[in-house]
């Protein structure tokens, strides 16, 4: 948990220092986590946007993309994650391997 939070914090710090890659104003999109599933991942994400992970479930989850991000999501918590790089990022919950999603960042 502490590791995950640290990794998340690092990512956000780096993001703040990097120049924004998107032309339009950065936006914040929400991904709801509930009933052991990730909700719809919004399309049209750009570098500089923020993903807000909101855990409405009873259980501790994570949004983990190996080598990229590892966000711990306690029940009821929300965590912001700035997108710093373009690409496709498949992610899972490291506790519940059936929970999967993919972020596509332009």
């Amino acid at each position, binding site marked *: 948990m502490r590791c995950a939070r640290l990794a998340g914090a690092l990512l956000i710090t780096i993001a703040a220092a990097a120049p924004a890659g998107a032309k339009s104003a950065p936006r914040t999109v929400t991904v709801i986590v509930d009933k052991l599933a990730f909700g719809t991942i919004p399309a049209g994400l750009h570098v500089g946007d923020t993903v807000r992970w909101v855990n409405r479930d*009873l*259980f*501790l989850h994570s949004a983990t993309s190996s080598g990229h991000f590892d966000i711990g999501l306690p029940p009821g918590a929300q965590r912001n994650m700035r997108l710093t790089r373009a690409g496709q990022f498949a992610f899972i919950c490291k506790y519940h391997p059936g929970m999967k999603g993919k972020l596509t960042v332009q």
Partner: protein
Amino acid sequence: MTTSLRIAAASALLIGGGAAAYAGGPTDPQIAHIAYTAGTIDIAAAKQALVRSHNKAVRSFAQEMVRDHTAVNDKALALVKKLHVTPEANPTSAGLSKQASATLARLSHLHGRQFDRAYVASEVGYHKTVNGALADTLIPSANNAELKSLLQTGLTLFREHQQHAEQLQAALK
């Protein structure tokens, strides 16, 4: 008893035995008792693993079992309170508990990798058995919509845990 035999016995107990023990399926108070017992058993198994195992992945899995099953059992307790339902002891719950005590006793003699493998194998089998019971007997028999919905969450959770246990089992080979 071998692992597969034990699983078969538990399955028969939950599915066949369940049908035989209750004409028309178990009632909501019985279902609540079975579901709560199933969670408690997995928590006890995980606590044993946290005492005996030194393997990081096994310990992390056991912590997840304690955390997730405590969360769902707390929710179940809150629900039965709200619905003024008193969970009712029944032969299925008793059978599960008896079997669980035997497993705890058997694993208490194992150490190191032997323990880790036996615990994880037992978890795979146990989650498979409970998944079968939830899908085939408990969920279809539940009358209250909120109870049914919580059991469905329980089934999704148990399936995730089964998958996680299977991955762990492959990694321990």
